[in-house]
């Protein structure tokens, strides 16, 4: 584990009741790289994200961020650690305008506090935040949507907004949860270009089932199945791994270690 590691996880095990959702998982993400997590449904990809973002409590395992060993963060502390996450269902605030949604992404760093807000003295901080939000929207190609409500956007547009919201806090590590889901091929291509640019600024981890897309943009790919990392490396090496082929196409090259009737979340 070198100093330059953006994020590193080892021996991560998560249990839901009696089920082992993640079993001794490791993950290393270097700065300015894109790491893709793939695997069949229910393999445990999102559970890794949930562990990093404080939504589930791991049974065991270690996490280091920027080379420093940490406690597993609580969800509202992510921003402090320089981590941003998008949600699978996009997770925009339906009652806030697009601009306000993006501003939410950096609210806690805006330097305002409750008393300033109460007396109407946070205008300066708000204006600054607003400019940053507009910049982020512009970068994501969603500037003209600023005053709309999320309900008025098309799906690809909401994706752009959620990326803008994740970026406004200038994270060092960006977690993207199925960003390509529901997008057409055109939008996927545009999105891939966007992510390659983004890589200059931070490390990106992507959970995705669109393997094509992952292959095109990732520097490293981890393949999960039944809560375990079954293969990792560049996409080209991974896709030649028989274990991966088996996991995806279901040839019975599987380890078979799972007890009859055992299942995985």
């Amino acid at each position, binding site marked *: 584990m070198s100093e330059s590691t953006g994020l590193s996880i080892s021996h991560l095990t998560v249990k839901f009741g009696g089920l082992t959702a993640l079993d001794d998982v490791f993950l290393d993400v270097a700065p300015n790289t894109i790491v893709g997590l793939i695997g069949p*449904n229910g393999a445990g990809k999102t559970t890794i994200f949930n562990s990093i973002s404080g939504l589930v409590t791991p049974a065991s395992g270690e996490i280091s961020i920027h080379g420093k060993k940490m406690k597993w963060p609580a969800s509202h502390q992510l921003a402090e650690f320089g981590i941003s996450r998008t949600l699978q269902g996009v997770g925009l605030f339906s009652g806030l305008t697009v601009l306000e949604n993006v501003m939410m992404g950096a609210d806690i760093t805006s330097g305002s506090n409750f008393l300033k807000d109460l007396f109407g003295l946070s205008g300066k901080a708000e204006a600054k935040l607003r400019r940053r939000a507009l910049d982020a929207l512009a970068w994501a190609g969603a500037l003209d949507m600023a005053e709309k409500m999320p309900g008025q*956007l098309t799906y690809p547009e909401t994706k752009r907004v959620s990326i803008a919201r994740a970026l406004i806090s200038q994270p060092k590590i960006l977690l993207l949860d199925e960003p390509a889901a529901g997008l057409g091929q055109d939008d996927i291509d545009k999105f891939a270009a966007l992510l390659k640019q983004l890589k200059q600024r931070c490390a990106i981890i992507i959970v995705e089932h669109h393997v094509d*897309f992952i292959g095109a943009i990732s520097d490293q790919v981890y393949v999960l199945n039944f809560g375990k990392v079954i293969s990792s490396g560049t996409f080209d090496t991974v896709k030649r791994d028989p274990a991966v082929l088996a996991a995806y*196409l*279901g040839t019975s090259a599987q380890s078979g270690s799972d*007890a*009859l009737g*055992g*299942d995985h979340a």
Partner: protein
Amino acid sequence: MLKIENLVTKFGSVVALDGVSMTAHESKITTVIGANGAGKSTLLRTISGLEHPAQGAITWQGESIVGRRPEDIVRLGIAHVPEGHAVISELSVEENISMGSLFRRRKFKSDIAKAMDEMYQLFPRLQERRKQLAGTLSGGERQMLAISRALVSRPQLLLLDEPSLGLAPLVVEQIIDSVNTLCRTTGLTVLLVEQNANTALGVADHGVLLALGKVVADRPAAELKADENLRAAYLGY
């Protein structure tokens, strides 16, 4: 026969099914395969009335079923086993199964006990656990229970959504075998959605490959199994 023509289903502005046309033939197993997010589950949910299509036609035995409610579609002989061992954990095994036959009580009262017995013969493990709550079952048993819940309504068409999800290969094999036997002996029509392509194509007569909401291949299963398209759809090469 179930015939689907140019079916489009949207979630808000997301197009999940983009003009799907296909057919499930009488007394055959048709499998719909494809990577996650290809629209397989949406297809089944649209057939069973859980989702409303934006356009397109679904005809069952020559009759259009678009726009009907799920509870009415079941009555037409189409039973749907949704993804993820859809049973009700707080109810007992027996209650879960008999739930599927409630609507037949008036007309076919005498048949219900028989239908339940058949389920227990099909999956003897469920009989041992008759009085247990469904929540205490293993994943494989829950999947068997979900299938029994659907079959007890004596459907002519079974929509089966990813029975292999999260299950160990041996269990998957056992479940798929049961369904296969049932189809071959009773003439049940099966529309099987699977991520596990090799297993599904192994039992199916016909295979339909979906990618991004569109049909990319529609061929006899054996042919499809050898097709390069298949690997490309899953792994992108």
